């Protein structure tokens, strides 16, 4: 029997499954961090997690609230300075997977975390790029995790903060980028992978009980499907238990807002 689970849980668990034991992962805060640590606590105990604060091969028992929590440093193999992190480890090509989220994404998996509305007179000023612009082009490949909605999955980005497949086709190659870019986009409804020719993000797997209509209703472009679309395997009881224990430990460690 399949246990009950929430949309966020199948999203995190499906993303975690994409990571391999031998991967070296540059981890963003929030859902990427939850998925990467879940992978480490389940099928990929030897995975190397790197946070941009300089912590190499960190094994936190709770999820960090911020990118440089003490827990990350105390459980790391070693901690390097931030310039070294970006120069030697990221730009130097030592990272196999970059794991990103964003506020807006388009059908070629370009991401916006900068502004909603015009740059000089923004409707919403978002935090900005942080490490993402160079993570997007320096890591071997990119996984993206984002809950799906019309507001987030848009026909045209207000601002390109980090490059996905650009305008599609061989755009990355034309810009001189040698890495693969976004190879997987996991949402709360389905999994996308880029079409081999057009590089448009294409649905390859739909989560149990989700319809194509729901996917379209939460996407600002006409969604394309692969020739063969699978049903995403539901979370197992042990994956769910590991994720829930991780979140419970984290909540206890961070304390509630007073």
């Amino acid at each position, binding site marked *: 029997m399949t246990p009950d689970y929430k949309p966020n849980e199948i999203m995190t668990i499906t993303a975690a499954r994409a990571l391999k034991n031998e991967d070296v992962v540059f981890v963003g805060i929030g859902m990427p961090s939850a998925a990467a640590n879940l992978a480490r606590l389940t099928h990929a105990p030897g995975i190397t997690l790197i946070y941009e604060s300089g912590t190499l091969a960190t094994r936190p028992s709770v999820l960090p609230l911020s990118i440089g929590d003490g827990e990350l440093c105390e459980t790391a193999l070693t901690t390097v300075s931030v*310039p070294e992190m970006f120069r030697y480890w990221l730009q130097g090509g030592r990272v196999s997977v970059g794991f990103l989220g964003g506020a807006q994404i388009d059908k070629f998996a370009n991401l916006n975390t900068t502004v909603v509305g015009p740059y000089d007179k923004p409707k919403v000023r978002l935090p900005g*790029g942080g*490490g993402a612009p160079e993570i997007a082009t320096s890591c071997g490949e990119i996984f993206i995790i984002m809950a799906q909605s019309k507001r987030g999955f848009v026909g045209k980005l207000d601002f390109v903060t980090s490059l996905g497949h650009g305008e599609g086709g061989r755009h990355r190659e034309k810009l001189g980028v040698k890495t693969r870019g976004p190879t997987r986009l996991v949402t709360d409804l389905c999994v996308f992978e880029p079409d081999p020719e057009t590089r448009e993000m294409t649905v390859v797997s739909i989560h149990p009980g989700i319809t194509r209509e729901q996917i379209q209703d939460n996407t600002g472009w006409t969604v394309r499907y692969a020739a063969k679309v699978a049903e995403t395997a539901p979370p197992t009881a042990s994956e769910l238990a590991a994720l829930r224990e991780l979140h419970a430990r984290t909540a206890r460690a961070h304390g509630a807002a007073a």
Partner: protein
Amino acid sequence: MARVLPLAEAVEAIVRDGDSVAMEGFTHLIPHAAGHEIIRQSRKHLTLIRMTPDILYDQLIGMGCADRLVFSWGGNPGVGSLYRLRDAVENGWPHRLEVEEHSHAAMANAYEAGAAGLPFAVLRGYIGTDLPKVNPRIKSVTCPYTGEVLATVPAHRPDVAVIHALKADREGNVLLEGILGVQKEAVLAAERALVTVEEVVDDFGPRSLNACILPAWTVSAVAVVPGGAFPSYAQGYYKRFNAFYKEWDGIARERDTFLAWMKENVLTKTPDAFAARVRALQAAE
């Protein structure tokens, strides 16, 4: 050579109106006490430089200390927006804030170039992003050996670097451990440097042969402020007060709750308040 001064005197001597100031810290060791002293002394027209402006820069911006922000990620990490930064950018309150926006890689490289005495930094960066369209200081150079086009940004050469470190010794040498961020580079790139520390010791004691130490002759002044990084953390002294970062979301959302909090917790307080906050947190655990 570093002088050991009370914090108010150190800020008075080192930070001037119109300065470019880098108060660095990457989640760890954020110089909150020094920032609050700058607010109390009403410094104006500052250019604030920092990779990750968080609560402290939200406070400086909301109190009208800054004309310009040079940054790469401005948010409350793991929580959400910086509402005072957003109010300044979106609505011009308390006045217009000019922004110069980079990526982390570029900011880190710019500090390193500043520390190295170079005019600019070079990186394989900004490819396919819109940032160079809105920041004319992002340019490019062609590699003379391979022909590869690489991004450039001007070196950071702040008038002042402000950091919080773990300890100083009697001579004013400064020790940092744990997540180091870009603090060493910021200090070595700056004209003047102010360092607050948890304590002054006779001797640093057992340490790695490669410990991160800023020699006294690279630091203008040291001020002893126990708890001075609170609510961020100091490795081995106190933990990050994550609950306060969540609470800040409610405080900073509206102008009046923000101003009331600043009056009660910054304007009418002294640097001693930081040690008391850490003691209260540790007693509650």
